[in-house]
């Protein structure tokens, strides 16, 4: 079985797959890759199924030595990767020979870079998923971010070492967005018209304390509806809640499953992967779309993802 030696973990590197849906009644949120599109594409480029576990690096990448030959792919943001000193391309699979070291640096584009390896990262599953849930310390590699000297096992499934790359068209269409499309939230009507207008007209800045649980925003303070407290209810991925104080928070992959703040909007499914590439201090704004548009955009995205000529070999 192949092994990846972690020489340097990077700022915050975790094992992620597509998460664990179905355990909301226990308070367990799905977790999974922050930019699921990038993880899925990376897996396809190394011949894995889309949901195999890979490494999610955040803002600053790590340094990894491969003890055996491995087929790799890097997707998401450009972390300036080199293999034994030679630059390697994003969105294209490549081979690491036994003993070679992959080194990544600080991001040159968005927040997250994914390392996918043929066979996937092999960890014990928690509730059917390899994803790390940091808050509860469960899943992934011992429920935590990688540390120096960790050794990660590579799954046994092997195919041919066959280089594949993403087509330019797919890359363009799946580009992360800074204008996030949203549908109305279940409590949109609680907010006065002026508050909603302010929300849609304002630019928001991603706050430093954002993480996989929530993306905190700074900018125009949204007036909170007055009177009475709300009863906690289930919250969706991408829900934009406005707590007291009026600074919106986008609930993200490691979200709380329930919450008691009114939600003004919800990021559409087709734009969720864009959230995973937001860095602190990035500026974003919101654009309201209707239910049919949100649905059509998701359908289009999945049609593109399913197309045969997405990846050329």
């Amino acid at each position, binding site marked *: 079985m192949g092994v990846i030696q972690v020489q340097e973990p990077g700022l915050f590197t975790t094992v992620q797959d597509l998460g664990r849906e179905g355990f909301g009644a226990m308070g367990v949120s799905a977790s999974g890759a922050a930019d699921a599109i990038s993880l899925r594409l990376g897996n396809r480029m190394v011949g894995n199924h889309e949901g195999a576990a890979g490494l999610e690096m955040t803002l600053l990448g790590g340094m990894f030595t491969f003890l055996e030959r491995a087929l790799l792919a890097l997707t998401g943001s450009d972390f300036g990767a080199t293999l034994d000193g030679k630059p390697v391309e994003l969105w294209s699979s490549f081979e690491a020979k036994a003993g070679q070291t992959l080194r990544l640096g600080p991001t040159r584009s968005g927040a997250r870079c994914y390392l996918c390896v043929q066979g996937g990262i092999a960890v014990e599953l928690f509730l059917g998923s390899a994803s790390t849930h940091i808050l509860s310390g469960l899943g992934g590699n011992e429920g935590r971010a990688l540390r120096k000297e960790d050794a990660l096992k590579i799954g046994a499934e092997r195919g041919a070492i066959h280089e594949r790359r993403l087509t330019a068209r797919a890359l363009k269409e799946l580009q992360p967005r800074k204008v996030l499309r949203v549908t109305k939230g279940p409590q949109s009507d609680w907010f006065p018209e002026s508050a909603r207008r302010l929300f849609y007209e304002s630019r928001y800045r991603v706050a430093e304390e954002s993480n996989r649980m929530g993306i905190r925003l700074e900018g125009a303070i949204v007036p909170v509806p007055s009177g009475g407290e709300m009863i906690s209810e289930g*919250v969706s991925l991408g829900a934009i809640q406005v707590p007291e104080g009026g600074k919106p928070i986008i609930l993200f992959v490691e979200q709380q499953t329930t919450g008691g703040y009114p939600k003004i909007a919800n990021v559409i499914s087709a734009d969720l992967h864009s959230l995973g590439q937001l860095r602190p201090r990035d500026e974003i704004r919101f654009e309201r779309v209707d239910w049919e548009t949100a649905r059509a955009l998701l359908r289009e995205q999945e049609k593109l993802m399913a197309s045969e000529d997405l990846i050329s070999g």
Partner: protein
Amino acid sequence: MAVLNRRVHGEHIGITAKGQARCLSHLRERGVRYTFANMATASGGARFEFASDQSLLVYFDELRETGRAESGPPQGEKSRAQARPLQSQIALQANEKVRKLLRLLELEPVAGVRNVHPAYCSLLVKFDGLRFRHHEVESILRGYLERLEEIKLPEPRLVEIPVCYGGEFGPDLTEVCAIHGLTRAQVIELHASAEYLVYFLGFVPGFAYLGELSEALVTPRLAVPRRRVPAGSVGIAGNQTGVYPFATPGGWRLIGRTPVAMFRDEREGFSLLAIGDRVRFAPISAERFGELEKEWA
């Protein structure tokens, strides 16, 4: 709170699943007790609200149907008026419907429904947006709602959780005493003598929202939440109480701590508490806390 106070202690410990029964007797040796309790039934309507492009909320909060007199809501704030804080009888009836719908969805899963997040009076249903439109899910759920009456909820378990109150384990106990003009012993007695319902698990894995707290203990949240609440902390907020399963930020006032692990990966069932369980807290000494903590480590 007649319903909550009615207790039926079962003699046997354990539920049908073999592994779980084994695990429960194991838990009992480590300070946790499960028995059974009973529950009343209720009926009524539901309303639907789209939450996202792949989820919708089912609310059981039609207050008028329960016959409760509410003062007229201000214009344009209908939903808000319907979503007032936990009102004992209404919340109990609504929550029972939440649990029945959840149960029915477990018994007869809908292909394409990916996840459900229950809460006091509502259920969030996440679905595959490539497969369904909202109204299609709504119509399936309406069919399920018509059958809620026939759903028998599993026999509620009574779970006893050992708690060491005050001191370093309950840093807010003194303040809670001061707020209510009660002694330490009175607060502990009020908290530990009641039997609570697990309305739902939410927030983080294994966090059970328990209600309802004695009126004499109803206390607002901290104005500034703690950045880190130690795992096992027992808190109160409004008329709710609960145990933090993990070290998380939190705004509830902490009155004690349990050495029991509320959520673990290797345990059958994962969460110590399940929706619909009944809970009691049993005061223990710091010494006993130390012993149990070792057993749970």
